[in-house]
């Protein structure tokens, strides 16, 4: 087919929703809006989707200014107009949203409220949590904004019925964290490496093993070795590492930065699975002088079994009530016309064939 036009997506406001700020109003992801029938639309592939993501809404937006984020303070445009992970987040009245979630509760697998850095974020997140909990029993996570929190406030979330806490560490070394989140044009708004880890530790103690997760982004300048180091550190703490693929937000400071190659991304997905589920340690991987993964030491058949299992390439997200994938963020870090970076469902045989090609394991596995 001869393609004649190729332009970057430009999303228009679908519907004027007159609204206000949290806690009376909240934003929801485009996929959530479709799942809850606030928006028309469908997914390219047919799969069940019940992971609902909420985002606090304030007139002055998020006080942080992270280089890669669509909500960054110095990104051009008003908060109302800003996309987040490249799509619109429609604004919905909280009580209307809760009623709709109650109506569709059987289809929901996991709820998550994303805080933003705002002095009102804790108060409002707690209020929204309580409103949800009065009518909906679906497991509920909070993706927290550490600068707004302390141990007592985290305990408040637990008491209100939150079962999992997510911490958007994103940058996996202290140096990168400072560069992208602390030493930034609009000021760091209290974002610091130490504060984030303090909230990870407090959350782990309050919520328990495997009830806390850290978001880790591939593509912010880290090495493969940096990523594996963080996977080991978090696994040792019994904290999940959730993997995200950097996807440039237009007009953000990293708007023109490249995504990781698909080969690097796939290899990191595989290595993470080998670390977390198969006990691979530092001695099982080889890195070159720049920190790039150049070897996996192990039986080829065992590594290929992990590939064929497919789970390594699925979205990392909080589980549903019975441990099934709960938050799957379809098309969260790639356009629908691109390869799935993480699959919101189990990859099928065709997907796995493509994944094997993308991994290009070849000489990467060094049998011992």
């Amino acid at each position, binding site marked *: *087919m*001869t*393609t*004649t*036009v*190729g*332009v*970057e*997506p*430009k*999303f*228009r406001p*679908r519907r004027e929703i007159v609204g206000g700020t949290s806690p009376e109003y909240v934003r929801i992801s*485009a*996929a959530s809006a*479709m799942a809850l*029938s*606030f*928006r*028309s*639309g*469908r*997914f*390219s592939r047919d799969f069940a989707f019940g992971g609902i993501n909420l985002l606090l809404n304030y007139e002055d937006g998020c006080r942080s200014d992270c280089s890669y984020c669509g909500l960054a303070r110095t990104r051009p445009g008003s908060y109302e107009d800003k996309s987040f992970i490249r*799509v*619109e987040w429609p604004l919905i009245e909280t009580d209307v949203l809760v009623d709709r979630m109650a109506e569709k509760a059987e289809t929901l697998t996991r709820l998550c409220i994303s805080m933003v850095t705002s002095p009102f974020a804790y108060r409002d997140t707690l209020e929204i949590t309580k409103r949800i909990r009065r009518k909906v029993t679906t497991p509920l996570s909070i993706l927290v904004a550490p600068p707004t929190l302390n141990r007592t406030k985290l305990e408040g979330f637990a008491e209100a019925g939150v079962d999992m806490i997510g911490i958007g560490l994103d940058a996996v070394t202290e140096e990168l964290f400072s560069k992208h989140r602390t030493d930034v044009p609009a000021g760091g708004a209290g974002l610091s490496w130490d504060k984030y880890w303090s909230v990870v530790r407090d959350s782990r103690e309050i919520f328990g093993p495997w009830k806390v997760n850290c978001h880790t982004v591939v593509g912010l300048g880290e090495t493969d070795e940096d990523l594996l180091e963080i996977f080991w550190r978090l696994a040792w703490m019994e904290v999940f590492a959730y993997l995200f693929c950097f996807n440039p937000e237009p007009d953000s400071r990293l708007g023109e930065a490249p995504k990781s190659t698909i080969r690097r991304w796939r290899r990191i997905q595989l290595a993470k699975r080998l670390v977390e589920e198969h006990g691979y340690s530092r001695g099982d991987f080889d890195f070159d002088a720049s920190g790039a993964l150049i070897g996996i030491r192990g039986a080829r058949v065992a590594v290929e079994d992990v590939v064929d299992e497919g789970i390594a390439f699925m979205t990392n997200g909080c589980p549903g009530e019975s441990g099934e994938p709960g938050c799957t963020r*379809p*098309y969260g870090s790639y*356009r*629908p*016309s691109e390869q799935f970076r993480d699959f919101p469902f189990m990859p099928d045989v065709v997907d796995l064939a493509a994944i094997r090609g993308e991994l290009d394991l070849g000489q990467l596995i060094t049998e011992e």
Partner: protein
Amino acid sequence: MSLVVRGSYGIDTELWYPQEGDYWLAPTSSGYRVGFDSLGLEVNGTLSHFAFVGVGTRVNQGDPMGTLEAEKFVGPISAPVSGVISALNDEALAQPSLLYRDPYRTWLVTIEEVPKDEVSALLTGDAAVNHFFERVEEYRRMGVLAQ
């Protein structure tokens, strides 16, 4: 333009409609302009990107003549009739939001040399209206339309 509107969806009864797909056709001096009807703009989510076969390409009814991409969807655009693609609306292709402002006037492509039997099978008037609102109900059952 003469719109029949029920609920959130409307159809222009002065245009012609294929029995398959969410398109309208309007005759020109040499062929037919083709655009998305209001359902075509709704069921896939917010459309963001199009690509079409080049001008001069012959297409068969039902075969892909392009692709569309929305926030969470990518899929083919099927030819509503057979013929030769004779023009593309570059302005609409570069700025998909134009489609939403005036869906029944904003065309995408022009097709010429359309077989007469396919033209005579196009729906107009009441038949088109009934078919359109049957499709609204079908999409509702599929769960792809907002409540």
